[in-house]
């Protein structure tokens, strides 16, 4: 064999090998026909270990249905996934998993005991939404959406970036949640999902590996319709839930620290001796969260500039008033400032008391005042003094 022909012959050999692989089509690959596409995972604390429910997308002609499968008492997430594979015969792929739902009980221990699986695996996107759920996550994932969506899709809409922009929900993805957990403050937050009104389960309560068609959009569901709400926010310290922000505090938190740029909120003003509720549409012009050091005291400055417009008032207005909705009375603006200052203060206090570094004080100190951070360490949050600079102006 001449040396010149060796690469050619090797190439021919390689091509032959490829053809063999191609036609045999049996070299351990798991193709689309053997894969179940997991869209959401619910994790609950079990009696021994964890209960994991996955929602699998099932293609039907012209639409997609869902099927929930539950594995009970798995030692680890990996165990649960392996058991799913074993029981259903389908290899679950998590690349399209968009939602991780944590049960309330699960959040009493460090949730990273379980969800670090998603960080270890390269085959799960850390862009997926993470939320805490009142009650069992499995039940929430089995609830049926009134608009016929798959459950995960309905929850995903509630936790969408559009919802975040209006300040109603504090959305978090796995990457940000993990960054908070591994960060200086070891703190993070998750939206707290509540299933409202007639949210009866339609999914599986069965034992290990039982697969039931259920959830939303699935045929044969016996449950009622459910609506999802995520206006509250759960605060986490070292992976455990330590406090909960109410809807108003969540809105204030969003106004101060997240991507919210257009929010709606109510302000109560006393007019002619009677309380009047103004619903304001607020456009956030500027928000700044800054940590500075005053001596050895960290100071957290909230600076918010917003423009407001009257969206509604709970008393009938004159034609003139209605026509001038874009002009907000001075008293309402000041009341709005005071209201949001109070709510933000509540949110900060709640976080501070629970030890959750919701506003990233520790991280800011670590970055901008490393010496002070070194000195104060974890005590920094407790010593932090908030300063509020909130100014509302009328939109026109």
């Amino acid at each position, binding site marked *: 064999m001449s040396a010149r022909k060796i690469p050619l012959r090797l190439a021919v050999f390689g091509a032959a090998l*490829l053809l063999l692989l191609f036609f045999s089509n049996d070299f351990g690959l798991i193709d689309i026909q053997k894969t179940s*596409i997991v869209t959401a995972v619910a994790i609950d604390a079990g009696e021994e270990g964890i209960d994991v429910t996955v929602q699998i997308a099932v293609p039907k002609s012209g639409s*997609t249905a869902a099927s929930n499968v539950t594995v009970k008492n798995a030692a680890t997430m990996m165990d649960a996934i392996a058991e799913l594979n074993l029981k259903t015969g389908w290899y679950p792929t998590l690349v399209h998993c968009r939602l991780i739902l944590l049960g309330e009980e699960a959040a009493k221990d460090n949730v990273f005991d379980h969800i670090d699986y998603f960080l270890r695996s390269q085959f799960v996107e850390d862009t997926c939404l993470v939320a805490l759920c009142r009650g069992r996550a499995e039940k929430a994932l089995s609830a049926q959406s009134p608009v016929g969506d798959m459950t995960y899709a309905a929850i995903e809409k509630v936790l969408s970036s559009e919802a975040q922009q209006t300040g109603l929900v504090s959305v978090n993805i796995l990457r940000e949640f993990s960054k908070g957990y591994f960060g200086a403050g070891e703190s993070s937050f998750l939206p707290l999902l509540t299933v409202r009104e007639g949210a009866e389960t339609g999914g599986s309560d069965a034992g290990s590996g039982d697969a039931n068609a259920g959830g939303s959009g699935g045929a044969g569901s016996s449950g009622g319709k459910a609506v999802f709400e995520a206006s509250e926010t759960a605060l986490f310290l070292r992976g455990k839930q330590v406090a909960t922000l109410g809807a108003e505090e969540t809105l204030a938190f969003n106004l101060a620290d997240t991507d919210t740029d257009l929010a709606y909120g109510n302000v109560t003003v006393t007019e002619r001796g009677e309380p009047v509720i103004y619903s304001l549409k607020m456009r956030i012009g500027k928000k700044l969260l800054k940590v500075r050091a005053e001596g050895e005291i960290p100071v957290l400055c909230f600076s918010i500039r917003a423009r407001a417009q009257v969206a509604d008032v709970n008393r009938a207005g004159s034609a003139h008033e209605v026509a001038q909705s874009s002009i907000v009375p001075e008293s309402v603006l000041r009341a709005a400032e005071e209201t949001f200052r109070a709510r933000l203060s509540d949110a900060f206090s709640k976080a501070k008391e629970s030890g959750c570094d919701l506003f990233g004080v520790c991280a800011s100190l670590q970055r901008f005042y490393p010496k002070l951070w070194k000195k104060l360490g974890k005590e920094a949050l407790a010593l932090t003094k908030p300063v509020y600079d909130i100014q509302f102006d009328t939109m026109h």
Partner: protein
Amino acid sequence: MEKKKNSTAFTGGAEENAKLLKDLLPAQDILVYRFATADAKPCAAVFTDGITDKQLLGELAARPLSLAPAPKTREEAEQMLLFPELRRADDAQTAAKEVLSGNPALFIDGVTGAIILGTKKVTLRAVMEPQTSITVKGPREGFIEDVKTNMSLVRRRLITPDLRFEMLTLGKRSGTAVCIAYLHGIADERLVQRICEKLKRVETDGISDSSYVAQFLSSAPASPFKQVGTTEKPDVLCAKMLEGRVGILCDGSPIALTLPYMMSEDFQSAQDYFVSPARATVNRILRLFAVLVAIFLPALYVAAQLFRLQLLPFGLLMTVSGGIQGIPLSPSLEIFFLLLVLEILIEASVRMPKYVALALSVIGALVLGDTAVKAGLVSSPAIIIIALSGISAYTVPDLTGTLSLVRLAYIVAAGSIGTYGIVLLTGFLLYYLICADEWGVPLLAPFSPLVPHDLRDSLYKADIWALNERPNVFRPKNRVRLRKKETT
């Protein structure tokens, strides 16, 4: 050799010479036309029936000779004959070649040797628009099978003494005329020399078409990639020659070859030069996109289904997943067999008569496509993918054959090792292509090696004033091809 030549030299009278020649050419279609001059000296014309214009032979050779006394010398005879094209042959070998080409050999008693009369008559098809490169705007002439006609088509467009034709005869038995055309002062004459030398070294029985010549000129004839450019249009050949390329015309073939060849040529169409540069650029980018779709789409579809579902957005994944339910074949085999069916349909429709081909395409589209989907043999997305890929490949007709093979290779690579197989095969092909430069110009020029000057007529088509210089990649002797005249 000399001895052999002497043994066939024409030494006798007309009858003896004609007999000598006829003995050399015993075929039945070689005829001898005998007549006499006014003073009864015998004359004989040996000719090939069917490719000689007998009427011309009679009118312009036999008639003047029969009305006058016999000429004494060949010069005198040539003056009597009214042919514009006359040659001489002193031996039977030379004369035989001419006779076989359609030019009769005329013997006159008392005149030494033979006079070759240019009365060749070949039935030719008319110059018409080639089927493979139809343009909406622009010249519609195409080459035909006669090299002389083809040369004339080139000459008509390049009325310059710099247009040179080097004639070669290839094929021991076919004696095919091959013409190497180039523009003196523009083309690299060392290249012309190399082409001539390479072709002269070829010893073959016969050449049926210019594609034989193309293979002789290729360093790797087994390669799926073209190494010689082709065109059926004289205007395209002339434009390429004006850029510094060398054209090769082959008798019996309507396809002219051009050298050096770059792959980017195939993305250019004659029409690009007759429309606005913006339109031409968009067209070229579309062609490139279509080629990428043709090659990569089926492979990526297979790889995505087998190895990387995330390549498909969720909605599409659900559609595909729904579509393939119950399909008995694996995704890779499904695409492979569909591609095979496509290739069979194309092959059959090319070979079939026009009207049957129409019916065949209906059968292919409806029966094989629609029914197969309904029967659950193949999925709708797979049909769409293959159809899209098949159609896309035809946006660059000169590359269609190559694309079919490459696409198949990509599907095998994707089906075996997934997207990484696609990357590896691309790497392999690129290494192959960037090092393929038999004629001094790499196939991937002007992209690799990068020749920035030439990019202006590659995927991007600059306006005519920006194309004032010939492509640098051909190292033309005279670089400027356009300049504005000074006006007074």
